[in-house]
């Protein structure tokens, strides 16, 4: 390669020239994987870009993208970038108000929406988006009834674009040529655990250099298969499904719809796969639940070979030496168990899998690695165009997030906060000078907001959000997330909220995992009628208590964290829900919000009450609200003081 293309549109044209016949993107539709090669994609993008131009789109204008992962929506990104515009992807499951904020804040001119559902949301809020001019829709289903003056069929737009292109044949290429690496490439809104979303401004250089570094780091090729199923508004999808595809030329596949993702995953059999820990976790839970119904003989075979895998699998994956016997046992296990298992999970061909976003349970992590799936952790942020640290092959540990990625510098502040500097570092928060200055220093260092330290292997270890790390009244350090994550590694626990900052001791509220606990209840003949009833069963409480005790045992072993042992806990009567504001859209716990909402419960946890009455407002899926009430028990636990016994 002589000159590296420095923008996405230039890359696209280069790909179309160099390997135009190779598949670029696929979508499962009408029962088969409809495929477009790079030349076709370049052609579609060109028509689209010219269509935008024909409708008065100027350099610097912004296009919002609302919908599931669809080839046309990815093309919209490239089309906007081709003519100097900025794509603004939004979360497809966001409610109208959330979308309205982004459209208004980003001063979006055009919206490309997937279907009627998304169009309806935008029409609801269009009066409050003064800059919004036109809405384009991909799926025409049910759209005929709408007033078509501001609503335009995607195909019409492309048709207009082709006409425009014929009249102005040089326009497109000229516009692409005008683009430079330092131009803004994309505006990504981070959901943020507090306050309004912030628009992260990334340039072509930011994204492309990071993407290239990642590709070189992991030796990705143009033969990778990737399934694009995570929200397009999320930076991870932008890097893995868009940027790296453009850079290395591999093909990305879009699933048929949200309900068929697992099936589509199995069909495609990706070689390069990204999933946040909850997905790996629910897959594993699913495996275990399905195995419980299996015939005895299959269970015996499964259990035996999984034991073999746990002992030798990770070693074989790390290319360490194992005994001949183990090697053959593992091979046999692969034929009988691991192979079929990976096959049903759609992971047969995975060469590289990443997980990030939060801590992954060591059991879960080991499970996949023992099957021979090269799953690694990374640590990243939207503000860094994702990669901050990556685990190099051969240095994969469940409790760290790896070493600094290529060209990334890391330093730890005195208060334990992690800072980094890299070519991927964002320009600014859109229209938010103050916040930008708060996060990004003059020298280009970015505050991650996470507390952590570099261990003796040179790996970064994250313990919590920096601002969440607090102190117990006795002065010892308290990292709530660390405690929560340890508890969440138990399959029966779905969510945990830990309290302790400024208190005498640590106390937690637990959400049971309905699927896992229901299954457990069935096997133990425990009857229940509802989530609430199941959560309140004494047997369930005991189950949770056992888990909490184990965590206390582990915490006691670490002198820094021994004081964070859990003294009291309760099991919540309802599932924490993003619709009720208790979780973020990325399913992170909003601790302060919860502390406020469930003030009575928190107070009870720090009293000697044995139970506490609570009434809660809930929002149902159809938009109605109601309330549920419950009398929740609170349990006390013993803490381990004897360190030797505990260890």
């Amino acid at each position: 390669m002589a000159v590296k293309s420095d923008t996405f549109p230039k890359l696209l044209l280069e790909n179309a020239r160099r390997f135009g016949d190779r598949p670029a993107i696929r979508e499962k539709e009408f029962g088969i994987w409809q495929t477009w090669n790079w030349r076709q994609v370049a052609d579609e993008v060109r028509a689209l870009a010219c269509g935008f131009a024909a409708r008065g789109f100027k350099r610097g204008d912004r296009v919002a993208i609302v919908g599931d992962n669809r080839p046309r929506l990815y093309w919209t990104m490239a089309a906007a970038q081709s003519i100097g515009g900025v794509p603004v992807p939004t979360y497809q499951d966001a409610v109208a108000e959330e979308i309205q904020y982004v459209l208004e804040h980003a001063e979006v001119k055009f919206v490309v929406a997937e279907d009627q559902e998304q169009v309806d949301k935008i029409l609801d809020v269009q009066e409050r988006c003064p800059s919004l001019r036109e809405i384009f829709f991909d799926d025409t289903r049910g759209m005929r009834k709408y007033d078509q003056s501001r609503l335009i069929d995607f195909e019409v737009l492309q048709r207009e674009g082709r006409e425009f292109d014929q009249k102005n044949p040089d326009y497109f290429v000229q516009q692409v040529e005008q683009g430079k690496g330092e131009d803004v490439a994309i505006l990504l809104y981070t959901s943020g655990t507090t306050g309004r979303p912030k628009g992260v401004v990334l340039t072509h250089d930011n994204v492309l250099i990071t993407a290239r570094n990642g590709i070189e780091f992991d030796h990705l090729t143009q033969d990778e298969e990737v399934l694009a199923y995570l929200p397009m508004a999320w930076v991870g999808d932008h890097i893995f499904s868009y940027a790296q595809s453009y850079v290395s030329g591999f093909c990305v596949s879009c699933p048929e719809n949200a309900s068929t993702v697992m099936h589509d995953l199995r069909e495609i059999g990706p070689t390069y796969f990204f999933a946040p820990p909850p997905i790996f976790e629910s897959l594993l839970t699913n495996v275990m639940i399905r195995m419980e119904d299996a015939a005895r003989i299959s269970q015996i075979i499964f259990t035996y070979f999984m034991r073999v895998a746990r002992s030798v699998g990770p070693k074989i994956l790390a290319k360490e030496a194992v005994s001949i016997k183990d090697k053959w046992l593992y091979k046999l296990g692969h034929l009988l168990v691991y192979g079929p298992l990976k096959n049903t999970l759609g992971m047969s061909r995975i060469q590289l899998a990443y997980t990030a976003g939060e801590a992954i349970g060591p059991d879960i992590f080991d499970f996949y690695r023992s099957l021979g799936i090269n799953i690694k952790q990374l640590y990243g942020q939207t503000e860094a165009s994702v990669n901050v640290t990556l685990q190099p092959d051969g240095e994969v540990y469940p409790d760290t997030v790896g070493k600094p990625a290529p060209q990334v510098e890391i330093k730890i502040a005195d208060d334990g906060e992690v800072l980094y500097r890299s070519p991927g570092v964002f320009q600014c928060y859109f229209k938010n000078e103050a916040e930008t200055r708060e996060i990004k220093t003059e020298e280009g260092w970015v505050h991650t907001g996470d507390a952590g330290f570099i261990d003796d292997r040179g790996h970064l270890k994250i313990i919590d959000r920096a601002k969440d790390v607090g102190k117990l009244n006795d002065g010892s350090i308290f990292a709530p997330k660390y405690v929560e994550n340890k508890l969440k590694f138990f399959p029966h626990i779905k969510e945990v909220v830990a309290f302790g900052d400024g208190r005498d001791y640590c106390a937690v509220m637990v959400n049971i995992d309905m699927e896992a606990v229901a299954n457990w209840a069935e096997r133990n003949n425990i009857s229940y009628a509802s989530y609430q009833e199941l959560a309140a069963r004494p047997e369930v409480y005991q189950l949770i208590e056992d888990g909490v005790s184990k965590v206390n045992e582990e915490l006691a072993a670490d002198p820094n964290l021994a004081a964070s042992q859990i003294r009291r806990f309760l099991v919540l009567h309802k599932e924490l829900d993003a619709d009720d504001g208790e979780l973020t859209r990325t399913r992170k716990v909003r601790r302060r919000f919860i502390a406020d909402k469930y003030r009575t419960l928190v107070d009870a946890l720090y009293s000697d009450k044995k139970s506490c009455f609570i009434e809660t407002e809930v929002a149902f899926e159809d938009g109605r609200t109601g309330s549920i009430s419950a009398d929740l028990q609170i349990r006390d636990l013993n803490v381990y003081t004897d360190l030797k016994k505990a260890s």
Partner: protein
Amino acid sequence: MEGDRKFGDPILEVQDINLSFGGVTALEGVSFDILNGEVRAIIGPNGAGKSSMLNVINGFYHPQQGQITYKGKTRRQMRPHHAASSGIARTFQNIALFKGMSTLDNIMTGRNTKMRKNLLWQALYLGPAKREELEHRDFVEHVIDFLEIQAIRKTPVGKLPYGMQKRVELGRALAAEPELLLLDEPMAGMNLEEKEDMCRFVLDVNDQFGTTIALIEHDMGVVMDISDRVVVLDYGKKIADGTPEEVRADQRVIEAYLGVTRDDN
């Protein structure tokens, strides 16, 4: 949805239909028309002759008297194959899917009248026959997409829940690209959510493809919501015909539904 819907000329007119089975009269002097592009409901108490009327329209029953004008051609009676190949498709009151076949194959049978390649070509599965098969598969996939039944594409229909079977049956009818679609109680036995889905599909079919729809339905709410005009039968006779509002206000209709108790209900 905008208020005023405009319709074309009648696509179908039945005139003075008399139908009886061995002395038992099912239909007596029934006349009405169905306009191009409208949703036409046929309602009436049990045993009023609604299903018989559909059976007359698509040629399964042959009336003793009367005539049927379909797309400008007047006949004494229809023949099932002729009706099917000239653009009349239907669903059935009691699901009449082909139990031993998958969803896909069931819907493919709806394309039967449009497939031409002979036995020999098909046995060889080469060239034209293969191409024809794949073209029709493509069309059927669009129907599957339209009805949102992708996930059950290859499931044998016998294993599907009731509501899904109804949807597949609609798919089979749609696959024939009908000009006139006859739906015999498309929402019978469904729960609220399934009914809403089905209503949406019926309206979308009418809207998207401009298909004329004649449907029999018991749920008055549904009928009033989605139909443009309603014809009411009772004891084999037409007792009212008009817009949902007119029909609802008709004294004879109210009597037929409320006034007389019947043992056959």
